């Protein structure tokens, strides 16, 4: 298998909309010199579709997010934390949104939200970390060195392309680990720069890199490349960005994504998260869960409305998931333990709003009191890949990325794909 570095060299002449520093300059020196003069601010001409993945880490309680208020079994399983119909944002005769999920309700009302019921996989893991890895790699009860978004990027762009994937956070999620591309990873855009005096900058520009002495060393050089290619673009994007909407109190990192889209970055795949297992609501769940949902859903709603205001809503879709749902029955502490099947959401103007999938039967639980999934979560991935990102360009892209064929859901079928590819 070729290393990313050799691929980089092979694909070094791939042109992008961005002017890069001269190739004769060593990658490390480039990264360290951060030669701003050669980076021209330029609005990208790309109109490629964009996928933003939002991970609600810790296991969001789907049953208390989109509440099946018409189902008596729901209230039997949850005598104290079950939410009565009159305390919900009504959605239809069967369902209502948690009060905190006002953002979802607003997206639902404008037809921009697809709710996919019953998503999961066989032999579910109840470990946060194992299950998250299954979702990140799209390989339940197995594994892959690269993430599903990384492999997706590799299939869309088989040669190394700067700024193809972006993950916002203090560490890189496995979901975006790619064989071909070096993902851009940052937390605070304003700190994404090498601070340096001008004499030092000149000096560094002349330095030849040390030949990599180990795989770890080689890895560092790759990261240095990515840093150089992205940092100034990201900082500029952020400093020029003025939010038009109310994103709420803690909108995850979606305003940063909006800033990058507004600045015309060529990134097609973004990953953000509600971090640190926040949704792991074992104890005293109702007030906490409502608050968490308000943050997440405000952020989601604000993001979509912001894209509309920017005129970019037609080319962005958001996919929302957790590593698992929660146990159907409440526990003795007013909370819920780790569960299995859960909701997923696809949101955005290109989405045909509505219910998809089949809600698991609350009276026919698995032997371990958990929901039996009805939709393989990879069907939703396949839908996002084939019906959204690939457009009419590539057929069967999801086969390539996911390793087998998954039946798509008709989430994009009734709205014409508005991106001319």
């Amino acid at each position: 298998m070729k290393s990313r570095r050799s691929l980089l060299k092979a694909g070094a002449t791939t042109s992008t909309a961005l002017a890069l520093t001269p190739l004769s300059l060593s990658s490390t020196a480039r990264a360290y010199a951060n030669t701003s003069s050669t980076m021209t601010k330029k609005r990208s001409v790309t109109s490629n579709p964009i996928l933003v993945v939002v991970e609600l880490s810790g296991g969001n309680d789907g049953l208390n997010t989109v509440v099946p208020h018409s189902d008596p079994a729901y209230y039997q399983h949850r005598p104290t934390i079950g939410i009565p119909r009159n305390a919900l944002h009504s959605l239809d005769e069967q369902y209502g949104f948690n009060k905190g999920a006002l953002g979802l309700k607003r997206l639902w009302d404008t037809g921009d939200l697809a709710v996919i019921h019953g998503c999961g996989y066989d032999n579910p893991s109840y470990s946060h970390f194992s299950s998250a890895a299954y979702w990140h790699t799209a390989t339940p009860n197995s594994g892959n060195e690269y993430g599903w978004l990384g492999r997706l990027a590799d299939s869309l762009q088989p040669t190394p392309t700067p700024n193809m994937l972006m993950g916002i956070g203090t560490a890189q999620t496995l979901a975006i680990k790619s064989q071909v591309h070096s993902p851009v990873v940052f937390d605070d855009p304003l700190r994404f720069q090498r601070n340096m005096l001008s004499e030092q900058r000149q000096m560094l520009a002349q330095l030849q890199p040390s030949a990599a002495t180990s795989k770890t060393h080689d890895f560092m050089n790759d990261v240095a490349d990515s840093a150089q290619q992205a940092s100034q673009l990201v900082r500029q994007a952020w400093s020029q960005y003025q939010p038009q909407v109310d994103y709420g109190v803690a909108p995850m990192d979606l305003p940063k994504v909006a800033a990058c889209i507004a600045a015309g970055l060529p990134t097609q795949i973004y990953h953000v998260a509600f971090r640190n297992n926040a949704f792991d609501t074992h104890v005293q769940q109702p007030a906490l869960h409502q608050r968490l949902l308000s943050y997440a859903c405000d952020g989601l709603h604000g993001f979509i409305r912001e894209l509309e205001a920017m005129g970019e809503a037609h080319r962005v879709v958001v996919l929302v998931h957790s590593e698992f749902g929660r146990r159907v029955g409440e526990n003795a502490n007013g909370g819920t333990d780790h569960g299995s099947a859960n909701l997923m959401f696809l949101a955005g103007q290109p989405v045909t709003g509505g219910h998809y999938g089949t809600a698991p039967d609350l009276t026919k639980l698995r032997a371990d009191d958990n929901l039996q999934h009805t939709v393989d979560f990879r069907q939703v991935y396949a839908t996002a890949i084939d019906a959204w990102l690939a457009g009419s360009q590539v057929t069967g892209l999801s086969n390539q990325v996911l390793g087998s064929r998954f039946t798509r859901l008709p989430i994009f079928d009734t709205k014409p794909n508005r991106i001319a590819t």
Partner: protein
Amino acid sequence: MPLCKLVMVLALAAGGLHPGAATAQTQDQPQSQDETVWLENLSPITRQNWNADHAAHLLSRAGFGGTPQDASKLAKLSPKRAVRQLSRGQRSAPTLADFTHSGVFNPGLDPFPSSRPATTNLAKAEGQALGIQVKPSGNRPMQPVVNEFFYWLRASRLETDRVAYWWANRMLHTSAPLQEKTALFWHGHFATNEDKVRDYRKMLQQLNILQNHGLGSFRELLVKVAQDPAMLTFLDAGVNVKDSPNENFAREVMELFTLGVGSYGENDVREAARAFTGWNFQALNFQINQADHDTGSKTLLGKTGNFDGVEVLDLILEQPAAAEFIAGKLYRYFVREELSPTFQVELGQRLQALDYRIGDFLELLLTSKDFYAPLSQGSRIKGPVELVISTYKKMGLTDVPGTPDFNLVTGGLGQRLLHPPTVAGWSHGRSWITPSLLFERGNFVLDLVFPDISFVPPDRYPSYGSEIVNVHKRLRSGLDISNATKPSGTSGEMAASNMLADADEAFNTRYGSYRGWQMAIERVLPIPRHTARLQLTKQVLDAKLTSPEQVISYWVERYFLVAPSAQTQAQLATALEQALGTADIQAAQSYLEEPLRNLLHLLLSLPEYQLG
């Protein structure tokens, strides 16, 4: 040829620059017979083979690095005595100071309700909460309760920052750095986070366990941690009762603390959870509420009996998988990321044979040929805390500077002490490096050599432009609380989280948050904000260095385990000469400091400096 000689010959061939350079060069070569023999070989390195380069490697892994002088002193001892000195310290060393409490705790704060709504519900029901009475009448009668709630959130967090500083200084001062390095390992293994625990006293108490028992028996450590209020809070075990066992604690004990995924089943988790029912704490002490404990028979890991929690832990430790899991994790942290499955089984057997005595097991690892094999050296990415403390040690600092702020720097690099991201702790290895974090590592050195004069500690004084500062300014300009706490303007629909913030007439959450902040900074002692006070000129002159080339190679030897290329070093030397206007260091001594600092910043920003 014996390995040590091979290393020395290569080091000489590389211009005698640094042992790391030699190590690096051997890695892409076909493995010599010696190396093959040393890899995964647990027999001890002989005294004859042991040298200052090995000692430097040992210092970096079993501690937080040191100066070349530290390494050569250590090299005079036998490998075993060297490890023992690092784990037990020196008798002559000064006693380490205990943590100084600011005195922020009020008795009414314990037990602290789970949330602001839980606090105000309690106040509504009982007429008081957190030791504060609800006002009998008047505006916002519950406001003082809400203020007290936010006071403690902020005060405990600030005090936790001081605990982290205290620990950082301990890492720098201790003569037994292996204790602190191992405590840092256990802190990532038994991870708890102040954000959820919300009580610096519990965080400190747990840290003391990790420091005092981290090199003892793993069984004792496991029991102590499992019965520790910080852990019980963090994993919701305090509310685990027999009618409805909470599985969170039992699951993490098996998955993350002892066995690892794949060595237990869901049924084992449920049965273990029953055994832990009733485990709770009162203030800072563990207790078992017998009425909540499930005394029925449990079946797990192939055994049946009326097990209690400690018996379950013992049952777990009997599993070979537990010993392999712990041994493998220790190995990856202290030695090398890659190890073969058969070697991991062997390590597990060794740990079990040592009756889980961690100090003895580490001595086995750290004196083994495997530990000194070239592939084990210079192959790890230093963790943020390790990077920062070892930089201070190598610079010869006597305490941790307050500017740059230790917690902000390490947090910005992905490892804020007492705030690990999840119960799984930190991921280590490559996860420490992202494009942004590579820059941050260099920026840390810049802030160290040229202090950031715009620095205002934002943990204590919220940064300009933040919402709480806006509230502050609006209140001072005479706006009433309702208007002062309205979120600053955006048009369009207001977000639910903003609408919910002030939905209750009896109190104002944002005002409480603001007032709580003020109350906290009055009580919490400040972190001293002195800078690093470097004396690079003195170091260079004391070492009698006369040319730029000597300065660079002196620094490479002092700071690096994997040396930058000879060409890079030559270029840096040329740059120093240009900056000085002469190649004569002595002649330039009156204005040496600033060019030296520029150079050191460049040097320590190189990728090679991240390897240890």
